[in-house]
């Protein structure tokens, strides 16, 4: 990634430290049936990286012995991992807050029906990507026909009670910009999504996460190819908000890669920047006490999480 000025390190001036470990985010692999243009994972059908049963067992061991309140499973598309049904069932037994990030489209497959039954029984929170309520804009980013399949998936989930008030089955949608600009305020976007999806398709959801595109992976390639990289980085730097620092996700989570390696966040995972500063960086050496207060590995991509209202896998942070 080309250097920017000032660098993120200069901007924050003091080392960024974790304040706890509340979330274990587990990336089970990079395989996906889609190839979205904004994907920082660069996931796709050709990716073969997948978590082994041994690493999954290690994750479960850590979760059984450590009081981590939230398990957040992501990919690629987790449903494509052959061991995923077993793994999610084991996670569900631990009685924690459990989120699964899905591209939505796969949930329409018949073979996912038992998985959806399990999600419902275990109160798994489903998180689906829907970059825009305009079909053309979403399809431009995620592939032709994806928008209407996601709408169909939401309709099916609504029929099962997901995204319906009072059922206790949360359905979260994720917005991210379909181009080289920052996302708007999460609350305003949530209102416009809610109105548009109800009026046009009669469907509902629980809440919206608004996420800034990180200048890494496939999105970085797009920025550079279209000569938007410099402008985008200047926009991120200009929008740097010190208030966002205290809510950054890296301060309260640990990301586990498909091979068991530990990272401060999913973005560092994609950049090959494991947890550093002499700490064990593999799930087999997970030690919460040592991870709390650790110094976070930072880089200029971190400007993506600190712009405006801030951004995280849980939406805005400030």
């Amino acid at each position, binding site marked *: 990634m080309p250097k920017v000025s000032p660098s993120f390190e200069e901007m924050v001036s003091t080392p960024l430290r974790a304040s706890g470990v509340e979330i274990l985010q587990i990336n089970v692999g990079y395989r996906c049936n889609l190839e979205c243009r904004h994907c920082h994972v660069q996931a796709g059908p050709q990716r073969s990286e997948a978590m082994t049963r041994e690493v999954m067992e290690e994750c479960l061991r850590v979760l059984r012995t450590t009081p981590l309140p939230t398990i957040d499973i992501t990919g690629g598309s987790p449903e494509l991992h052959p061991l995923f049904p077993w793994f999610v069932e084991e996670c569900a037994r631990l009685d924690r807050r459990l989120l699964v990030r899905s591209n939505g489209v796969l949930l329409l497959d018949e073979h996912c029906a038992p998985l959806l039954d399990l999600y419902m029984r275990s109160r798994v929170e489903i998180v689906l990507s829907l970059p*825009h*309520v*305009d079909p053309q*804009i979403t399809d431009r980013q995620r592939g032709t026909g994806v928008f209407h399949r996601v709408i169909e998936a939401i309709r099916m989930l609504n029929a099962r009670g997901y995204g319906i008030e009072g059922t206790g089955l949360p359905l979260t949608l994720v*917005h991210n*910009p379909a*181009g080289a*600009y*920052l*996302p*708007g*305020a999460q609350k*305003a*976007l949530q*209102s*416009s*999504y809610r109105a548009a999806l109800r009026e046009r398709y009669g469907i509902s959801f629980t809440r919206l996460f608004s996420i800034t595109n990180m200048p890494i992976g496939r999105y970085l390639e797009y920025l550079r190819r279209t000569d938007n990289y410099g402008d985008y980085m200047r*926009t991120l730097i*200009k929008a740097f908000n010190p208030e966002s620092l205290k809510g950054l996700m890296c301060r309260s989570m640990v990301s586990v890669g498909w091979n068991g390696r530990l990272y401060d966040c999913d973005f560092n995972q994609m950049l090959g920047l494991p947890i550093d500063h002499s700490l064990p960086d593999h799930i087999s050496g997970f030690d919460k006490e040592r991870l709390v207060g650790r110094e976070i590995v930072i880089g200029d991509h971190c400007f993506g999480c600190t712009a405006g209202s801030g951004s995280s896998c849980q939406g805005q942070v400030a």
Partner: protein
Amino acid sequence: MGDYYEKKDLDDFENIGEYAPELGSKYFDYYGEAMKGGELTEREKALIALAVATTQKCPYCIDAYTNQCLSLGISPGEMTEAVHVGAAMVAGIVLAHSTQMRKIIKKKEM
């Protein structure tokens, strides 16, 4: 003399109060209040601002409010409709002013 309307000048907008800070500060307070969501949503206000920016031919405002509209999830179709509202208004205003012309014609012609 080739330096009018440089893109980087948009970043200088925050310094317009340089020689009159009190007035600058009052202006920015007013601007912030006027543009935030109230009885009209932030979205509606961004579309009005975009229409004004194009009719007033301000490249800085067009840049700022096109980005703002994109950030708010406003589609290119919606933005274009807003610009057409501005264009139709400007056309109407021009034509309405021809009333003056017609009045003079009627007075002067035999």
